């Protein structure tokens, strides 16, 4: 599979989400947009479908409950908002009101990892760990903004709760040509072929991984990059194949190193009896990070492209 990169262009994932909500709202009269005072991207939807738009103010627990009620009546509610409050403030409601009853509620969260710029109250470094632990919940992490639309459309026929993690959502890098790939829940995408090592990343970190791979290519090191956008269920075959074929695995994510994709993959490898020669996690250490941009913080905590390239070189020594 040849992947088209378009590193130069940015798009706001939040506006793609807003546009897609409008598109889905037109097509499906059971689609609702729900927000806890974060509906900035939903202007068209709320103008044209005011009776399917609910803003409850800053009350995320209540919002999750209302979403459950709507879904019980055959509606498909999309909750959008900031990740920490969507996944932590409303954690029990998500689990008990939504997942326990296996209701098709969609969560679209922005500000993944340390991209929020708001400090530790607004950082989202535990969300994947929390959401993936809930029975019936599906967890996806998306970097390329165009994927957001494809996944939202795909979600219309998906009968279970689904969490879509976005990066900051304001200025997101396009990686793939729109419409070229069919994304599927439970699948990953080989964004770059390679044989010496594999970087498995999700969300915005796929770009860092590709940059690291390009740097290493200049030094004769051939690195595979997997965009593991589906974290639960995860593409076990793709991960195991990479471990068998390249031996060295680096998991790169804007999430705590414990509990996220790295932990999922460690489980996958151990359970399958597929042991990478070397396995390295790059991500957020056990720390409440401070202020600064996502780019600055990932350099500080050692999970940017330079640190990734260095980690691979060390592995191959």
């Amino acid at each position, binding site marked *: 599979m040849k992947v088209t990169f378009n590193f130069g262009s940015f798009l706001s994932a939040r506006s793609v989400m807003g546009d897609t909500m409008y598109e889905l709202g037109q097509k499906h009269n059971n689609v609702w947009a729900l927000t806890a005072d974060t509906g900035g991207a939903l202007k068209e939807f709320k103008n044209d479908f005011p009776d399917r738009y609910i803003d409850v103010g800053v009350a995320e627990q209540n919002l*999750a409950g209302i979403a459950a009620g709507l879904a019980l009546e055959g509606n498909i509610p999309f909750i959008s908002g900031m990740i920490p409050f969507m996944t932590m403030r409303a954690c029990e*409601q998500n689990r008990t009101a939504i997942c326990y009853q296996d209701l098709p509620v969609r969560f679209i969260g922005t500000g993944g990892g340390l991209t929020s710029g708001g400090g530790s109250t607004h950082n989202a470094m535990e969300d994947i760990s929390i959401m993936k632990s809930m029975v019936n919940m599906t967890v996806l992490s998306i970097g390329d903004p165009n994927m957001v639309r494809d996944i939202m459309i795909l979600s219309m026929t998906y009968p279970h709760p689904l969490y879509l993690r976005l990066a900051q959502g304001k200025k997101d890098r396009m990686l793939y040509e729109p419409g070229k790939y069919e994304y599927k829940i439970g699948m990953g995408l080989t964004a770059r072929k390679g044989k010496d090592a594999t970087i498995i990343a999700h969300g915005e970190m796929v770009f860092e991984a590709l940059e690291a791979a390009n740097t290493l290519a200049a030094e004769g090191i051939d690195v595979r990059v997997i965009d593991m956008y589906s974290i639960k269920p995860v593409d076990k075959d793709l991960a195991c194949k990479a471990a068998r074929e390249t031996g060295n695995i680096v998991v790169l994510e804007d999430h705590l190193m414990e509990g996220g994709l790295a932990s999922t993959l460690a489980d996958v490898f151990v359970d399958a009896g597929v042991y990478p020669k070397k396995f390295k996690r790059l991500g957020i250490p056990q720390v409440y990070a401070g202020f600064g941009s996502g780019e600055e913080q990932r350099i500080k905590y050692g999970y940017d492209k330079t640190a990734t390239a260095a980690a691979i070189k060390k592995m191959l020594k």
Partner: protein
Amino acid sequence: MADPKEVRRLQKLAYEMRKKLINLCGNYDGIVHIGGDLSMTDLLIGLYHHGMKVDPKDIKSPTRDRFLLSKGHGAVCMYIAMSLRGYFDYDEIVRTYGQLDSAYGMHPCKIQLPGVECSTGSLGQGLAVAAGLAFSAKQKKETHRVFCMMGDGETCEGEVWEAANTAGSYKLGNLIGIVDRNKQMMTSFDGEYMNLEPYADKWRAFNWNVVELDGHDMGQIVNALDKLPPVTNKKPTVLIASTVKGKGVSFMEKNIGWHAGALSNEDMQKAMADIEAGFAKERSTAK
């Protein structure tokens, strides 16, 4: 005024239901939340046997009224009210309650027991879900109501007031909250630590239509349900029903020890006698 014949019919059902509750509690090898079951017995009879448009033979009818038991620990009380209406077999409830693979457990599960509208048990969550059902009905211009039974203790949860705020703001006139105001939590009386008063004013402040009633006076229950405003009302309605935890059983009434418990044979006999006596008294004083 409520039709006296209808009130007598419902009182008889409530009496039967109390005996069935005590019988189940006495035959179950474990604890039952009997205190709060007895406090909402009359209300559930009023709802399932008079106030709500429901049909046990058509549990998915789009026009049915919806009922959510936010105080999910009172599930057994709901099962029995529903069994008296023809949803379930009471003997099966008694035989299997709380057993492995039974559909009838301590907290109601929609997936295991069709007829239950929503799985509940985590306190304070019901009203928000009920608001979701009400939003959907309002948007589709459906004419049914959504009833949500809450315990007063669980209204200490913030989510209840978030939902109350939303329902008031969005004028969900099809949403009816019922509070089983027995003034007892699991381990304390109202006012001992937490003071919920002025309770009705709190709901009024959230733009709700408030109806206060005696939750053990079947005439008042029938009146309140008959006089609910239309679903197009500009405010949701809450029925604040003053009740007694353990109502009808002398040693349980207002006794902190009887939030939940198991009944010995001797206690069961005594409880049955109390309920018989209470019903006889109710009948003798009826106009």
